[in-house]
């Protein structure tokens, strides 16, 4: 309902109330296991955003989630549920690592381009088979992408313990470290005066992530292809009538989705680990689903949701570090509650707030416009057009 809420309430007030509710319930859980929730909250917040150090990690994690979130979002626009982020990101890591290990790249600027191509290509390739099967055979993409996650993990273990492993280096299933010349400048290299430490994992791929947000925005809302993707996602029969090929859209949307998810490797593999390990994704593929859903598949929403999750990751890490006896799984609980309240229980808060706004404005309101056309429920669109 467009008119029920002013824009600021819709995009700020409601999420804020939701977030507070999530934190209150998290606090109860913390109290229940005998810890001080206020101390926990303060560690969580200062740990995440209270220092350059915290920001370095928060934004680093957020970068991963932006990529996976954007990828899931693009697929969502074509009404495709891509659960395969874990696998696609792992393969992206493989593509990235192969480029960096086997191509002689003299400088990081060249390397990031080459590695991005490799990561995107491999990520897209891993999405291509489920996409093809969905488009041509109608095989449900949710199953095939889940299966491809498992297949990817097997492939990674095989390659890293049998093929790409460095012989005689102690048997750790990982590739060699990438050469120094492809080291990505991190926040310390670029912005040393802001107090980042040398080890901060935040690196230039954060900028790549922002560029990816812009790219997705342009793609979805400014290109003919994006228009077709959205049209297809909204109505398949209409797409048919409009001369939009379902096979083409499914393939392209999934390829873009896989490529974006694969690009996560630039941050985690090239930027941070600087080598390929067995599980370079660490659940970011799944977090990407939550991020895309919470961000309503809009790049700005994805960016903000990724930031929130990045902060929770980092703040949660500090929490287990600083608070004795705090299990690291508490982060999962807080995340879950944030997803639940901001994502799924949104209407619990929205409905009463809307009623409050409506009754507050009811009196001065003019009678209906002449033609009884109703500006009925397009609350979703308002995020569509910034």
């Amino acid at each position, binding site marked *: 309902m467009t008119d029920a809420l002013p824009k600021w309430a819709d995009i700020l007030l409601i999420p804020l109330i939701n977030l507070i509710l999530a934190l209150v319930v998290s606090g109860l859980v913390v109290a229940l296991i005998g810890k001080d929730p206020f101390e926990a909250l303060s560690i969580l917040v200062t740990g995440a955003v209270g220092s350059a150090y915290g920001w370095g990690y928060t934004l680093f994690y957020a970068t991963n989630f932006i990529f996976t979130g954007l990828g899931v979002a693009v697929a969502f626009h074509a009404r495709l549920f891509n659960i395969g982020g874990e696998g696609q990101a792992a393969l992206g890591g493989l593509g990235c690592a192969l480029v960096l290990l086997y191509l002689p790249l003299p400088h990081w600027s060249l390397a990031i381009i080459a590695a991005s191509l490799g990561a995107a290509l491999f990520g897209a390739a891993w999405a291509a088979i489920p996409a093809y099967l969905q488009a041509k*055979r109608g*095989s449900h993409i949710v199953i095939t992408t889940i*299966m491809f996650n498992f297949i990817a993990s097997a492939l990674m273990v095989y390659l890293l313990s049998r093929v790409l492993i460095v012989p005689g280096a102690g048997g750790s299933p990982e590739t060699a470290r990438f050469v120094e010349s492809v080291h990505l400048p991190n926040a310390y290299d670029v912005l040393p005066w802001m107090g980042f430490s040398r080890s901060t994992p935040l690196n230039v791929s954060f900028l790549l992530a922002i560029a990816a947000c812009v790219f997705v925005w342009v793609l979805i809302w400014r290109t003919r292809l994006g228009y077709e993707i959205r049209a297809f996602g909204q109505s398949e029969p209409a797409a048919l009538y409009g001369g939009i090929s379902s096979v083409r859209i499914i393939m392209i949307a999934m390829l873009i989705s896989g490529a974006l998810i694969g690009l996560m490797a630039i941050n985690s593999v090239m930027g941070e680990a600087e080598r390929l390990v067995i599980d370079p994704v660490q659940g970011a593929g799944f977090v990407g689903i939550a991020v895309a859903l919470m961000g309503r598949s809009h790049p700005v929403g994805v960016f903000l949701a990724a930031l929130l999750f990045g902060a929770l990751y980092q703040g949660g890490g500090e929490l287990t570090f600083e608070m004795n006896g705090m299990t690291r*799984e508490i*982060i999962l*609980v807080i995340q*879950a509650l944030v997803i639940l309240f901001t994502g799924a229980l949104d*209407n619990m808060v929205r409905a009463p707030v809307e009623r409050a706004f409506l009754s507050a404005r009811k009196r001065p309101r003019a009678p209906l416009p002449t033609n009884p056309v109703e500006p009925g429920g397009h609350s979703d669109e308002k995020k569509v057009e910034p």
Partner: protein
Amino acid sequence: MDYAGLIQILDSALRLSTPLLFACLAGLFSERAGVFDIGLEGKILASAFLSAAMAAYTGNVWLGMFAGILASLMLATIHGMASITFRGNQLISGVAINFLASGLTVVIGEAWFGLGGRTPQLEGAARFGELTLPFADAIRGIPFIGPIYADLLSGHSILVYVALLCVPLTWWILSRTRFGLRLRAVGENPAAVDTAGVSVVGLRFAAVMICGLLCGLAGAYLATALSAGFVKEMSAGRGFIALAALIFAKWRPWHALGATFLFGLLEALGNRFQSLELLGITIPTQFMQALPYILTVVILAGFVGRAIPPRAGGEPYVKER
């Protein structure tokens, strides 16, 4: 491979498919009623934890099982509140429930037992034992039939038989009872149910609760029958596989039995034939371990057509906006 080996593989497949079957039927109830549930995994995990915890605490596996079901029902209630009462996004709610279960089981487990989220090892009456079917030993000697009865069918936990019974029961409920008719209708067109004077919310909640109950059984089976205690993340993706099986089964009970048994069988085969030599080349273990998943994709692409979910699935029922 000899006959005994075959029986063993089928036997293993039966055990491995049981939690999948419970979860698949759970998802079936929920999704046939129009509520998508990717939170099966979380409910299984929560139930596995609480059933093991309670069984360890009381030494009684039945109490454990009920506690497990209770845990699963609590998460189901959250899912119902989010997706039915407050008409939230069902996928988001499911994702949240998975995270919640992963986190809470360890946080609470650590607070209670201090074993890093593990529960104490279960023994004796705190665990489901194996049920020997009547005359199993007498019949074992009969060729062919004997081993099927005595080794394959007999000697499982009671929950295996419960799961198998749930299949005809589910079929019967859905196709032969008033409740089933309404439940199927609400997944296809909730407005039809509403205008027929039946509560959409009530029906969907009932379905979500049945889903919780069955997930509870799946979790209890994992922790107190197949294993002897809870280990964190022990559901190990089975909720997702069950979801795949559900789509595979096109949301039908007997098909669900087939699909979950197929998944169980593929896993059992993968366990059995991990190192295979073909034409002098050793197939890498990892390939054999991925084989069940590869085969699933192949079967799906080759033999199972388009799966059409219940029409109102995934959408909250909104009359007024």
